[in-house]
């Protein structure tokens, strides 16, 4: 594994009050690669990616031990600015969640709160983000339309554009296609393939074929533990652990 590490997770443990949800997780997330996390419901995948930009901080009773290094710096250090961390590590959620405002304002929202007020600059960022999210051609003539009137697949790409607008380095996708039809899913998967040229991507998915199709690395979670991590080709051709084999072949889970 010669690829460069963007994020290194070491002995990460997380509790929701007494519930031990992540157990001694070690994982290297490679730069400009897609890492897929698979595992049965409730195994800690979503909690894990939310730990990568400290989204779990917002939940009461959460306790975290261990380290998550982003470019060598532990994001759980006391002096880390969580807002800039979340700018660097963006997230796209399971259900498209555009703000109830225009397409333009949705994409411009992040840059604006990060202090960009210049209209020309904002227009450039909105266009670039929509182009990179493969949505520009479909919406360029109606940027003032309410984002909630877009189709589900378009809304999800808008959310991706909104994430791209603040120029993150890492994008976390939490089951981004589970609410989408196969065509919209195909578009998001193609997009992920394009995006990895510029960004490091982590995707949580319940769809094993999706993990196999889009990712370079795959990690299998079970009951809060990272059971097996490796190149996707290896995981799907010849997993080393029987638990992984049983899960991906549908014998368990």
């Amino acid at each position, binding site marked *: 594994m010669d690829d460069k590490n963007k994020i290194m997770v070491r002995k990460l443990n997380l509790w929701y009050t007494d519930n031990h949800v992540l157990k001694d997780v070690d994982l290297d997330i490679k730069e400009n690669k897609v890492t897929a996390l698979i595992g049965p419901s409730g195994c800690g995948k979503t909690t894990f990616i939310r730990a990568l930009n400290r989204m779990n901080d917002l939940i009461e009773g959460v306790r975290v031990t261990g380290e998550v290094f982003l470019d060598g710096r532990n994001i759980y250090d006391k002096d880390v600015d969580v807002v800039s961390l979340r700018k660097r590590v963006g997230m796209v959620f399971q259900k498209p969640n555009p703000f109830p405002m225009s397409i333009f304002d949705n994409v411009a929202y992040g840059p604006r709160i990060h202090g960009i007020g210049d209209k020309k600059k904002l227009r450039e960022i909105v266009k670039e983000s929509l182009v990179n999210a493969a949505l520009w051609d479909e919406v360029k003539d109606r940027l003032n339309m309410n984002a909630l009137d877009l189709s589900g697949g378009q809304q999800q790409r808008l959310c991706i554009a909104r994430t791209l607008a603040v120029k993150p380095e890492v994008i976390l996708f939490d089951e981004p296609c589970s609410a989408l039809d196969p065509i919209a899913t195909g578009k998001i998967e193609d997009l992920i393939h394009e995006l990895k040229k510029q960004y490091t991507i982590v995707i949580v998915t319940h769809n094993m074929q999706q993990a196999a199709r889009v990712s370079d690395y795959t990690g299998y979670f079970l009951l809060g533990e990272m059971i097996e991590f490796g190149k996707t080709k290896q995981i799907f051709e010849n997993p080393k652990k029987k638990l992984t084999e049983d899960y*991906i072949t549908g014998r368990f889970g």
Partner: protein
Amino acid sequence: MPRKALDRQIDKIRRDILEMSELVSDAVLKAITALENNDKKMANEVIIGDELIDNYYTHIKKRVIQTIALHQPVAKDLRFISISLDVAYNLERIGDYARDIAESLDYMNKGYFVLDEISEMGRISSQMSGDAADVFVNENRENIDEILKKEDRVDELYKSVFPTLKNIIEKKYEKYPDALNLILIAKFLERIADHSVNIANRAMYEMSGEEEYL
């Protein structure tokens, strides 16, 4: 995930391979027996029976493609399913060689001779094809050593028939067409043994996921 449906397809492929290997092993044995006894009727059964073996191959290919399309198997399931194609291909080739041996009866002179070495090669290679399919279908690793020993014996016999047949060609002019045919038959039998080793090789990959050549 419809795991049971995939298991049913895998079971059907396993059963098809097993039935195909029984037909193939039987065809080799019948071909060599027909040659030994100049039994044209038995030889004809082998020739006609090859069509059934070919049908099995076509049928297994179709089922493999359907299973991949409908169930998207991965890991060991995928190895089993894709390697069953290799196994069926090798069995189909063995079936063709059995037919070639059966057809060679038409080219032998009246009162032709068969070397004991060739009879032995025929019996061993017939067993080998069944044993190799068993390694794959039942993941029976214990057969592997036996298959390799048999292959060594077939190679040894193959080398030994040449001086004898050369001698016959040089000294007994009237027997040279039979001797030439026997050289071909020995080659077919040696190839049958090789195809059986191929099957065992693929079966080992199916079991371990690692390429290990015998």
